[in-house]
């Protein structure tokens, strides 16, 4: 069954907070749920499908109770790290299109700032004994990818730094962004190295907060007053070390991207705006290549001349992205979807609104680079 255009995102809400010491994660889930429902012109009683990442409480059950969701007919607590929410929207679109539920709510709520992060995985995770004792860190793993990408393709630290500079350029127009100050390539390169070749400013921010979206059938969307956004294509894929033959120079976007493009019947050249997961600057370079926006290995050259800035060949992360705006709870996927929705509704900040934005892509990358889930959504303007 092709999902193309059968369902829509009818409501979206990004929590305006970035540092929320007085909130619980559950409270943030509820605030964004109510925010997205109000945006859609719907109420709690309308929701019959619920999607969350299952990290808080017992799958989706605890939050369903806390938020006050009754009459749920469909739930899904898929956890794929930062790409979870793109998976959720794809799964929700499938559930709605097949009649399993009518109005699906997807929420993210996170409260992490100032809290020391414990072990990422329980010790009985099979790979844990072979990686954790060596001081494996998320940035360390991405640094290994960046180093190898530089070796194989001649990518430079300066090219990666432009990804941050472009994000910072956009973030200056976003009063909710955690970091709103423009940053130059030189400032990125002179910031302290955290794991060579990645500097402090090659890394995303850590924030509290989150967001929510509502997925409904395109018939429901037509009855609502608010402008909606059509879900045209979805793809997701998992890549891992392949029994110990890890190639760190590409992500699972090489599979999720083509699946989403095929379902939407469009190609990378048709995309007007892209939200690209930016845990680190190298993540963006590799993902642009893997999604087919440029040839493999050409990501550095693609971004170097300002292509990612509004007015460029492919405006990316016009909210300031995870690098400057928001990366709640170490998971940036929800915010990626929401900025794509803003662009397609014509509701981005005026300075970064892409003119005649009809087709957008949102992409999430969850996990590390050694094992990850890539999830891609293609979204279209509701009236297009």
């Amino acid at each position: 069954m092709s999902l193309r255009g059968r369902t829509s995102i009818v409501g979206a809400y990004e929590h305006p907070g970035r540092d929320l010491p007085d909130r619980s994660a559950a409270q943030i889930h509820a605030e964004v749920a109510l925010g997205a429902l109000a945006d859609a012109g719907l109420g709690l009683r309308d929701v019959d499908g619920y999607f969350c990442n299952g990290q808080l409480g017992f799958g989706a059950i605890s939050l369903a109770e806390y938020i006050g969701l009754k009459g749920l007919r469909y739930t899904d607590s898929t956890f794929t790290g930062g790409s979870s929410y793109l998976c959720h929207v794809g799964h929700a679109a499938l559930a709605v299109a097949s009649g399993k539920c009518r109005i699906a709510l997807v929420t993210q709520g996170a409260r992490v700032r100032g809290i020391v992060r414990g072990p990422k995985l329980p010790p009985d995770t099979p790979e844990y004994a072979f990686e954790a004792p060596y001081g494996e860190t998320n940035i360390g793993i991405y640094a290994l990818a960046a180093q190898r990408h530089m070796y194989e393709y001649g990518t430079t630290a300066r090219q990666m730094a432009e990804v941050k500079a472009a994000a910072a350029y956009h973030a200056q127009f976003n009063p909710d962004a955690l970091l709103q100050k423009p940053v130059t390539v030189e400032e990125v390169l002179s910031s302290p190295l955290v794991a060579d070749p990645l500097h402090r400013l090659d890394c995303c921010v850590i924030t509290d907060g989150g967001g929510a979206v509502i997925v409904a059938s395109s018939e429901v969307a037509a009855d609502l007053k608010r402008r909606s956004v059509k879900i045209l294509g979805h793809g997701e894929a998992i890549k891992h070390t392949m029994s110990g033959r890890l190639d760190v120079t590409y992500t699972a976007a090489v599979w999720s991207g083509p699946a989403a493009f095929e379902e939407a019947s469009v190609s990378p050249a048709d995309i007007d705006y892209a939200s690209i997961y930016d845990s680190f600057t190298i993540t963006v370079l590799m993902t642009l290549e893997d999604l087919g926006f440029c040839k493999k290995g050409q990501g550095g050259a693609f971004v170097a001349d300002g292509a990612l800035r509004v007015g460029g060949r492919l405006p990316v992360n016009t909210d300031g992205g995870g690098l400057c705006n928001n990366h709640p709870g170490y998971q940036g996927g929800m915010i990626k979807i929401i900025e794509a929705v803003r662009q397609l509704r014509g509701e981005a900040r005026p300075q970064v609104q892409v003119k005649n934005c009809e087709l957008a892509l949102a992409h999430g990358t969850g996990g590390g680079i050694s094992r990850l889930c890539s999830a891609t959504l293609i979204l279209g303007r509701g009236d297009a």
Partner: protein
Amino acid sequence: MSDTALPAPPPLVIPETKPFWDATKAHRLVLPRCLRCSFVIWYPRQFCPECGHGAVEWFEASGQGSIYSFTIVRRGEGAYRDTEQYVLALVELQEGPRVLTNLMDCNPEQLRIGQPVQAVFCDAGDAAALLRFRPLIRG
């Protein structure tokens, strides 16, 4: 970098991976190989994730490899929180697998991708030693 400062947190040893860790305790590298398709499996398992066969044999590996990628981590976490810096690397073993590890006995600034390395073992608790590498000195 002082190698004696590298932490050696004990890995969780379970029956499935005990043959691997037992060998490391004796400072030997053994790897599982599929009895049907001969694929050399990493990380160690007692079945073949390539062909689905349910039996493996453990064989003595060379301990030789080359650097596939490396990074100097300057902000460690967990057991490495107080380690000023250390080299995290992916080493490609001569037998095929690429393993996550540390490089030691080296000047990190002079490391390069492709450089040959040799296994070394660092005792980690009573049940295991960590598989690390150092640049191979020829001659």
